């Protein structure tokens, strides 16, 4: 309403130095909620949010932003929602234009909606509380080492709709990083400390809580220097120590890695390179990747000696603007689980790009001869990628496909094969714009049949001037790791060599939506989606499903919005032993946007 008097967002100046802007919205309406996991109620509700931004002296000296919100979902703040969340977000930047820039940020959220991921399918819905705090500082002084420091901490507690269990997590981390250039050397050093604690429900198999405590820190040092022929020579060292405590045991390990590389560009077309890597704890590297992906180690693992080194050389030549050829040689030597492994691989690849039949074609063909030293067995690896797009008459067509076979994984002796594709099609039929798309991928672990994943998705939609429609279908299955944030795909999984529990999953989902804009300020949207999945984990099977229905009508009059909406949400897991959660909500109300100052 102030905007009636001023044409631009006004800015308040307090004293001579503080400038602030604030805008936001307030909503009032009649809401009704009912379901089997919440008390049914109805009545007048109010909500709102605001954003206050400002600076002291100048924005480059100190700037800030605070965004409180009350009684609304951040995902859907204008209509009915399954979670009436509240909270505040804020951040402050200091000396952003100077030599010592810093920032402080914080957030606190109550009853906010989150997700529990399932590969290739709609994610499951969670709700809970969280808070976070982060502070960062930098020292950027010319001719001195540049230093950046960051500290963060946060907590989260949540529950998954359709279960009667809760999860919690908290984290602390600190990192410091420095870079310095002296006498032609680029030097860098870093330190990272991370600690997190999680308790999360194994709701797909039992109602037990899995406990996970991770504690780790790492140091790194590196240096590089320019060489003749536009070349560089670099080396890095990293030591990473970590401890993982979980319900059934503990893992402690230290991983040292050394990497060095050299690259030359003697001509504009030719590139030569060499690379060397060494680690004294190969299995530890693998476990760390599982933990960082959110997985856990469900068995105690005694200390095992393992190491790995590999050396590779590369030559690449740009023959024409259409053709590039690359040759690579790599030798690996690994020792783990009391055995030694070695392999040599020789790879030749060609990249081609050109206009083809009126469109654009790009391809990659790569052939690898892979030989294992211990078994003296050889295999041919293959990688092909094809992308093509063109306009055929009135049709816009594009597609891509890839196939890979015997692709080396982190461990010698384990290779993967698979394929993928995607395609898009579209054209105009008079005033109607129609499009369709399809995609899919499949990846398998060659040495352990049955471990892998595949997914496919299909979609179509059209829009006319004031009407739009879309529909989707997806299906997915595979093996993965059940972790803190959901199921993580991992083709490199199995009881051996990984001491972790696998989860088998499979499911399909479909949905559709329609949007109408019959008048300039009237918007009508409706969407429906449903997902089904089956999981088997620790010999416990679970049938899971979710359903979302959402409809909204909104009419805008100046800065005021008249809203009416309805939502229905269902989510259930048979292994949880509880009835599927059902939440229904309807809303009629008014929302008003303000430019306060």
């Amino acid at each position: 309403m102030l905007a009636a008097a001023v044409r631009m967002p006004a800015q308040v100046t307090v004293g001579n130095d503080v400038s602030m802007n604030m805008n936001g919205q307030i909503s009032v309406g009649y809401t009704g909620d009912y379901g089997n996991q919440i008390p049914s109620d109805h009545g007048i509700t109010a909500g709102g949010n605001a954003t206050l931004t400002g600076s002291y002296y100048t924005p480059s000296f100190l700037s800030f932003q605070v965004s409180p919100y009350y009684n609304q979902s951040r995902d859907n703040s204008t209509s009915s929602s399954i979670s009436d969340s509240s909270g505040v977000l804020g951040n402050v930047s200091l000396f952003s234009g100077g030599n010592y820039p810093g920032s402080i940020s914080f957030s606190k959220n109550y009853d906010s909606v989150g997700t529990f991921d399932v590969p290739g399918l709609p994610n499951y819905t969670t709700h809970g509380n969280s808070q976070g705090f982060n502070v960062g500082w930098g020292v950027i002084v010319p001719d001195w080492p540049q230093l950046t420091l960051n500290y963060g901490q946060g907590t989260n507690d949540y529950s998954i709709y359709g279960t009667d269990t809760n999860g919690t997590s908290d984290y602390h981390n600190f990192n410091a990083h420095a870079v310095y250039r002296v006498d032609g050397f680029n030097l860098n050093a870093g330190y990272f400390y991370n600690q997190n604690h999680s308790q999360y429900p194994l709701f797909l198999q039992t109602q037990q809580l899995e406990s996970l405590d991770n504690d780790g820190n790492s140091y790194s040092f590196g240096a590089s220097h320019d060489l003749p022929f536009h070349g560089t020579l670099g080396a890095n060292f990293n030591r990473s120590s970590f401890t993982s405590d979980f319900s059934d045991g503990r893992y402690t390990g230290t991983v040292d890695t050394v990497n060095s590389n050299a690259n030359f560009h003697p001509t504009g077309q030719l590139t030569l390179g060499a690379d060397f890597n060494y680690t004294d704890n190969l299995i530890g590297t693998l476990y760390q990747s599982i933990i960082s992906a959110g997985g856990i180690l469900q068995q105690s693992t005694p200390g095992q000696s393992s190491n790995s080194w590999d050396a590779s050389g590369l030559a690449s030549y740009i023959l024409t603007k259409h053709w590039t050829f690359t040759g690579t040689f790599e030798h690996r030597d690994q020792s783990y689980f009391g055995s030694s492994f070695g392999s040599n691989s020789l790879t030749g690849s060609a990249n081609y790009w050109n206009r083809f039949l009126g469109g654009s074609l790009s391809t990659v063909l790569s052939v690898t001869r892979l030989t294992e030293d211990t078994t003296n067995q050889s295999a041919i690896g293959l990688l092909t990628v094809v992308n093509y797009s063109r306009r055929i008459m009135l049709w816009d067509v594009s597609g891509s496909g890839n196939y890979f076979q015997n692709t080396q994984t982190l461990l010698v002796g384990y290779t993967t094969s698979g394929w993928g594709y995607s395609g898009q099609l579209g054209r105009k039929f008079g005033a109607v714009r129609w499009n369709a798309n399809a995609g899919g991928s499949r990846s398998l672990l060659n040495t352990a049949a049955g471990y892998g994943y595949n997914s496919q998705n299909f979609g179509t939609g059209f829009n006319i001037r004031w009407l739009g429609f879309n529909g989707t279908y997806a299906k997915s299955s595979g093996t993965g790791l059940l972790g803190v944030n959901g199921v993580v795909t991992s083709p490199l999984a199995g009881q051996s060599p990984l001491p972790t529990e696998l989860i088998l999953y499979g499911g399909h989902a479909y949905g559709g939506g329609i949007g109408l804009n019959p008048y300039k300020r009237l918007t009508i949207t409706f969407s429906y989606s449903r997902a089904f999945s089956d999981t088997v984990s620790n010999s416990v099977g679970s049938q899971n499903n979710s359903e979302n229905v959402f409809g909204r009508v909104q009419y805008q009059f100046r800065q005021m919005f008249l809203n009416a909406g309805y939502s229905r949400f269902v989510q259930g897991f048979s292994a949880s032993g509880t009835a599927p959660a059902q939440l229904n909500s309807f809303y009629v109300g008014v929302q008003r946007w303000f430019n306060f100052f």
Partner: protein
Amino acid sequence: MVQFLLNRAARSWRCPVLEVCGAILLIVSPAWAAQKNKKADKKASVQASVPDLLLEGGRKLVYERNFGWERDVKPKKGFWARVVDVVAGPPEYHTLMRPYSVVTDSRGRIIVTDPDAAGIHIFDFAQQKYKFLSRQEKGKNSLFSPQCVAVDAKDNIYVTDSESGRIFVFDANGKYDRMIGALKFGEGIFKRPTGIAIDSVANRIYVTDTLRNKIYVMDMQGSVVQTIGKPGAGEGEFNFPTELRLDGNELLVVDAMNFRVQVLDKSGNFQYAIGKIGDTSGAMFRPKGIALDSEGDLYVVDGLWGAIQVFNHKGELLYYFGGRGTAAGKFQLPTGLFIDRSDRIYVADSLNRRVQIYRYWGLPKQAAGGAQ
């Protein structure tokens, strides 16, 4: 020669303290908010005081006002309008983004083209009404970059679009009527139409095509009946012609890159030219809009210097006014110029996002008692 001494425009002035207090009051009480709006209305209606430019023989040039957005046509609101403003927020007023050309019709409505807004603003101060015209269609049938505007005897509005190469015609009520310049298979007559003038007596439309260095003469249905001019620097030749103005039997053409205004008869025969290249007074560097007052003096906008120079028929500089700046009476890249029958001078002040209005008081009008 007297140059205006100009004060800062009141409408561009804001008091932050008042706005803070206003914000607090508005949040607390709608009634107080209405009071705030009332004060703002008064503030917005205040126009800067620009000294009159006194000329020979008692003539004078008087600065009247400027306007830049829809709100200016009705600065004062009634009680209920203010209540609605408080409850639902103010309406989204149209604002001049980059006014380019200006003209008035027989009802006194001021019509302004705005390439950046891809439309035409119609300000009706007498009726306190505003209208925005645009046309969004597929292909080249949309109004993309309106340039110059003219009206016929029935107040139909003709707008050149330099990007689509079309002329869009709207009726007096602002309803789209037709398009001129399109041929079959999507081709068009014009390469870059800019200036336009209407001869309602002879039913002819004159359009400059800047890139073709020609003037097209068309009937009212859009059929080309004659072309005038060719590339060059000689008499009747053009180097990027832009604005057109029809005055009696004379057709005035801004020959932009020859740095002159050529005067032709309606058949295209060269009569005389005014102007020369230079960066001193009396010369033309970036001639834009042109117009003639009731005494037949020629007003030429110079975009670079932000000034309007006034010449007599002999091409002698009589005086100039304006100058670069943001205050009232100053210009930032002025473009279009129009003088109505009562000698009100409308200048499209493009980068200041406003139209400024002066009034020329010649001897006959002052003698008739029209003093300010």
